[in-house]
Structures are given as structure tokens and as C-alpha cells.
């Protein structure tokens, strides 16, 4: 018996030895990489190859794609004067060494052709220069006049493929264009592409307009108009120009916003100096009151899943952000920092709420999680207001007014900033601008 035991012990010992031996033989050097940088990725956007009239289009496409990518702050397009391989020579097979030599990590190449039906066919390919393989390749067909949208869609694809996030370049912005002196300010609804192109006015400035917001389809805008000196919430159909008032309330309605599914409008309704949050179903026209409090409840915003609503209220003594269920129950205060908080806007991704904060005479644009934790302030100024999210939930647009003084009334302009807080850009508009709203991706 004891011999058996000893034998067993020997076997165990031997196999343990053998195991250790093989493990050692297979073991290899393992190294943890825990540091890196966050720098814009060097990317080469080669001119899209086209012949005849399409030659210019090809160059335009590359230019718009590169500038979209550059504005995102995540890419740094390389000057095409440095390119070694000519666009015509790429033809589906880049010489990757040439592109590595100019430090490109990714390469965009493309071809634009005119089809017999008069449309253009844009073929693009995104290449990983170091892995030496194609990352994505697509064809778009469109009327020649729509080449800009094609460029934005290509840029969206590149952004998405490389960052893992959805793009936001094929989007539009509606905002309030402001002209004239402070005493006779003319405010008009205006719309433009996300890069400032295709700008046009939607209202003529006869009535004061405020707080435009897009519907989920990007085809309608809800906003506040002082038509006939009565502040009311309206809906404007962008393609037809048709306007309608939202519900015929005897009192002032304001701070409208579409629900994510586009079927409801959520807004504030003011009665005898008090305001509460209401929704109106656009199909049944049924109105539902969600808050009933002596305090001022306003600026409601749905979570993307429509289960919760964020709004601001001064029920606790000062203006703060609250979250409630979509039926108005379970009201919880979420902002507890110093200062006052206003205009909560739920991210389309659902993970954050953007807000305006006032503290010690200064305004901030910030974000916090829906439970109120993780507050971060991204932008500040004499007056910053009106945060609105890009559809991918990574970039926020807002407006900033400078203090002015003396004869200088100050100026008001649009800006965008990404969630890292580092990439702030002015959005150039023909006149002064406030109250931007970012559209969802255009279908």
C-alpha cells in the first residue's frame, strides 16, 4: 500500500515536472501596454479620380471629406502636396510604403464616374496603411448636385470605421440668426449643413423666434414664436414650409422638444406665473401634464429610450436638474454641485446629460451622468447656453456671448466642443447666431 502511495507520488511529481517543462517551453515574452496618446490620426485623403467634368468633383469630394475629418479633431489630414503616389496610380492597390513614408496611418482613395443615367457613381476605399489592407469600400450613387452629401457620407463611414463611433457629418444645424442693434434685434430661423454650407433662412424675421429643435426625422422643427405677440410652440415642416401651432393653449407654451420617436412634443406651459411640464401626442393631440408643482418646472428633455425625462426646477430653492419617469413619477434631483443648473439635454447615446451651469457670475457647459455623478465642465464664458448634441453623442454645440461693454454690445456665436473638452471650434455663420440645434443623421 505504502509502495503504491510512493509510486503515485512519483508519478505526480514526474508529471508536475513535465508540465512545468512544457509550460516553460511555450511561455513567451508578455508585455503590457498601458500608455498611449490621443492624437489626431494622420490620414491621407487622395483626390478622387475622375475624367472630364468629374475631375473637379473628385477634388471637391476629397477636400470636403478631409475638412469634415479635420473638424472632428480626431484626424489630421496630410497636405496632398506631400503625397508620393498619384491618385491615378492607386486604382485599388496603393503602394503602402509610399504612404508610410509620409506618416499616413490611413489612406482614402476613390473614383468618381458619370453613369449613363446622368448620376455620378462614387467609389471609395479606406486603407489601413500599416496593416496593408482595405478597411471599408463602398459605392454611392447620386445626382451630381448632391456631391456634398456623398462626401459627408463617405466621411461618416471613415469616422465610424476608424473610431467605432457613428459619424455625424451628414447632418444639418438649425439656429437663430441675429442681426441689428440690441434694441431692434431681428431673429430669424436659419438652417445649414453641419459644415456651414447650404445656408438659408426659414423665417423672415417679422416675429421673434426662439429655441428651435429638430424632430427625429430631421424633417420638422419645433420652436417658439411670438407670432401676433403671443409666445407659442410651433412646428415647421422644412420641405413644405408649412407651420402649425402645437395645441391651442390659452397660455404661454415654451421650451419645446420632440420625443425621440417624434410622436410627442414635450414642453412647458405657463399659467399664472407658474410653469409645469406637459407632453402633447402629435397624432391624438392629447395633452398630458407631467409635473404639478408651485415651482417653475421647465426645459424638459427625454432620454433616448423615452423612459425618463430630465428637466430643471427651482422647487428646491434654486434652479437644479431633476430626472423623473416618463409618466412624471419618481422625481429625483441629480445636480448637487455649486451654483445653478439649467437646460438639461439628454445625449442621444443615453449615457450623459449636457447642461448649462451658472456659478460665481460665469456660465459653463458641462455633462453629467443621468445619476448626477461624473460632472465635467467643458466650456465656459460670460454667457454660454443652449447645448445640443451631435447624433453620435460625442460632440456638443452651444452658443457663447461675449460681455461687450461701452459701445461694444458683445457678439454671440456658435461653437462646438467634443467630449474630451479639447477640441473647441467656432461654427462660422453669416451673421451672429444663437440657440443651435443639431439634427439627427439625415435619412
Amino acid at each position, binding site marked *: 500500500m505504502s509502495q503504491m502511495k510512493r509510486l503515485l507520488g512519483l508519478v505526480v511529481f514526474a508529471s508536475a515536472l513535465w508540465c512545468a517543462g512544457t509550460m*516553460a517551453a511555450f*511561455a*513567451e*515574452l*508578455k*508585455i*503590457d*501596454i*498601458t*500608455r*498611449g*496618446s*490621443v*492624437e489626431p*490620426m*494622420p490620414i491621407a485623403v487622395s483626390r478622387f479620380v475622375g475624367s472630364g467634368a468629374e475631375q473637379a468633383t473628385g477634388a471637391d469630394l476629397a477636400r470636403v471629406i478631409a475638412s469634415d475629418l479635420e473638424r472632428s479633431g*480626431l484626424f489630421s489630414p496630410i497636405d496632398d502636396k506631400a503625397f508620393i503616389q498619384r491618385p491615378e496610380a492607386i486604382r*485599388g492597390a496603393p503602394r503602402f510604403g509610399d504612404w*508610410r*513614408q509620409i*506618416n499616413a*496611418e490611413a489612406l482614402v482613395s476613390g473614383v468618381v464616374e458619370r453613369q449613363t443615367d446622368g448620376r455620378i457613381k462614387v467609389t471609395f*476605399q479606406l486603407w*489601413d496603411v*500599416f*496593416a*496593408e*489592407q*482595405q478597411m*471599408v*469600400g*463602398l459605392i*454611392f*450613387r*447620386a*445626382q451630381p*448636385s*448632391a456631391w456634398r*452629401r456623398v462626401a459627408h*457620407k463617405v466621411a461618416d*463611414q471613415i469616422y465610424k470605421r*476608424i*473610431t*467605432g463611433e457613428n459619424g455625424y457629418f451628414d447632418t444639418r444645424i438649425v439656429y437663430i440668426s441675429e442681426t441689428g442693434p440690441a434694441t431692434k434685434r431681428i431673429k430669424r430661423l436659419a*438652417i445649414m449643413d453641419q459644415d456651414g454650407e447650404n445656408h*438659408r433662412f*426659414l423665417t423672415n424675421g417679422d416675429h421673434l423666434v426662439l429655441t428651435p429643435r429638430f424632430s427625429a426625422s*430631421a424633417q420638422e422643427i419645433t420652436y417658439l414664436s411670438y407670432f401676433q405677440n403671443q409666445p407659442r410652440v410651433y412646428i415647421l415642416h*422644412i*420641405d*413644405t414650409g408649412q407651420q402649425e401651432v402645437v395645441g391651442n393653449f390659452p397660455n404661454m407654451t415654451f421650451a419645446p422638444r420632440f420625443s425621440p420617436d417624434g410622436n410627442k412634443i414635450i414642453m412647458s406651459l405657463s399659467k399664472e406665473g407658474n410653469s409645469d411640464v406637459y407632453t402633447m401626442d402629435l397624432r391624438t393631440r392629447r395633452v398630458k401634464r407631467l409635473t404639478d408643482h408651485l415651482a417653475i418646472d421647465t426645459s424638459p428633455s427625454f432620454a433616448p429610450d423615452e423612459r425618463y425625462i430630465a428637466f430643471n426646477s427651482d422647487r428646491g430653492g434654486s434652479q437644479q436638474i431633476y430626472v423623473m419617469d416618463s409618466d412624471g413619477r419618481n422625481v429625483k434631483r441629480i445636480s448637487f454641485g455649486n451654483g445653478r443648473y439649467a437646460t438639461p439635454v439628454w445625449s442621444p447615446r443615453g449615457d450623459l446629460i449636457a447642461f448649462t451651469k451658472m456659478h460665481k457670475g460665469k456660465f459653463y457647459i458641462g455633462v453629467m451622468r443621468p445619476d448626477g455623478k461624473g460632472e*465635467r465642465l*467643458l466650456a*465656459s464664458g460670460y454667457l454660454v447656453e443652449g447645448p445640443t448634441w451631435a447624433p453620435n453623442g460625442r460632440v456638443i454645440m452651444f452658443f457663447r456671448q461675449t460681455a461687450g461693454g461701452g459701445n461694444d454690445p458683445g457678439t454671440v456665436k456658435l461653437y462646438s466642443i467634443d467630449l*474630451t*473638452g*479639447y*477640441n473647441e471650434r467656432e461654427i462660422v455663420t453669416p451673421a451672429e447666431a444663437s440657440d443651435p440645434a443639431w439634427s439627427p443623421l*439625415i*435619412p
Partner: protein
Amino acid sequence: MRFGAAISSFLLHLCVAALVYFGLPSFFEPEFDMTQSIAVEIVTIADISNPPPPTPAPKSEPLDKAEIPPPPEPLPEPVPPEPEAVPEPPPPAPEPEPEPEVVAPLPEPEPEVIEPPAPPLKPQRLAALDVEPPPTPPSKPEPPAEKQQFDTLLKDLTESAPKPRASEPELTQAAPTPSTVTTARDEPLSMTVSDSIRRQVEDKWNVPAGALEAGDLDVEIAISLLPDGTVRKAEIVDRARMFQPGEEYYRSMAESALRAVLQASPLRDLPPDRYEDWREITFRFRPPV
């Protein structure tokens, strides 16, 4: 007389005693100071041997790049269109294809202005050009890891202390992690060597900003090296995960990690006599916690 002597003796003794009591301690004070506790920081060897964080250097000098020889064994990716290639993600991918069949006309806000209605954009997948390999069957699920925090990377105006701008972004100056290094031999490869390899790869790694708040994103890259330090082969270990729906962040991370390794090629300062020790390396890329 005797009494006087007694008194002076007493006084003298008193003086001596007083001197001892009040005077001597001051001689010893410095020594007491010496015995005060000294702060000792216990660090791992790897920490010490880590080269100091680099001053933000230009991403890479062109010379270096020019020297990169083409990998002797090109990735088995046929560059010309591969007819039978399959669309990258499996069909149930949650993403709608870039575009529904036909795009609604661009909204026309000013009806009175006559403009051609916006044309439908009809993108289609370039099946023939897509050289992405078909998705392999789902791989083992990764164990859920603790949520990574990237707060060091994000700007917050609440903090008065200026944080490094994105242009000089050393991710982990705050929290250097000791390297995990194991070797096959009894005498491990010197820490300096593996630290140097680590540094060379870290210098080239551009963390995808999109992945900043995503959770479990560890990526392993297995490489084999030629004796001159050139990366002969580099593979994403859990490649299958890249093509699963909802793993776009992982794919971005994996691809950025692969790029970092390839960009670092050829690795420098490797001891030739220990080739067997560094011929095969597995890098584990994990965002700083």
C-alpha cells in the same frame, strides 16, 4: 569654611547637573532628527528601470519610417479585389447599412425657390472590393473587466490645475503600471530590454478616442520578430471578436494596437544573443485605469 566648601560644592554640582540637563540634549538633537522616519517608497524594479516618460516627441521622424523594410511576409490579404470576399460583419449587424435604399429628397425649406429635389443616394456595399475575411465563429467571451477610467484624458474646467492638452498627451503620467514580464528562461530577459520594447510600442500607440469610456477592451497582439527586430508577423489574438456586432470599439482598439506594433517595427536595442527570448512577444494593450 567647611560650610562654605559644602555650599560651593553643592552649587558646582548643581551647575554641572543643570549643564547636563539643559545643555547636553542640544548636542544630541541632531541625532534625534536623524532617527525621524524617512519616507520610503517601495517600487517594483520595473518602475525604476522604466525610462522616464518621454518629452512629447514628434510622432516619428521620417527617417525612421523610411527605414521600415516591408514585412517579408506580407499579410495574406490579396490586394486586388477578391470576388468571393464576404461583407465584414455578419448580416445581423445592428448597424443599418450606410444608407437605406433611397434617400428622401433633401428637405426644401423655401418652397418658392425652385431647386431640383435632392437626389437619392444609393450606396451599395462593394462586395467585390471588400477584402475583409468572413467572421469566424464567436470566440470565448471575455471576462468582464473592471470599468476603465479615462478621466485623466478628459478635460474638466472644474479643476483649476491645468491638465495636459491633447497635444501633449501622456496618458499615464499619473499612474504608471509596472510591466508584467515573464520569460522562459531561468534568468529573465533584463527588465531594461522589455521596458525598452514596451516604450517603443507605447510611443506609437494612438488610443482611439471613441473607445475612451468603453469597458472591457483589452487587446492582445501576438508578434514574431526577425533577428534584426523587424516585425515578421503580427496578429490580433481574439480576431473573431472584431467582427461581432456591437464590438466596434473593440475593433477600433484592436486595429490601433496592431498599427502601433507595426509602426514600432523594427524594434531596436534587442540583445542578439537572446533572440530566442524575444522572438515571440505577446502584447496586451489595456487602456490606463
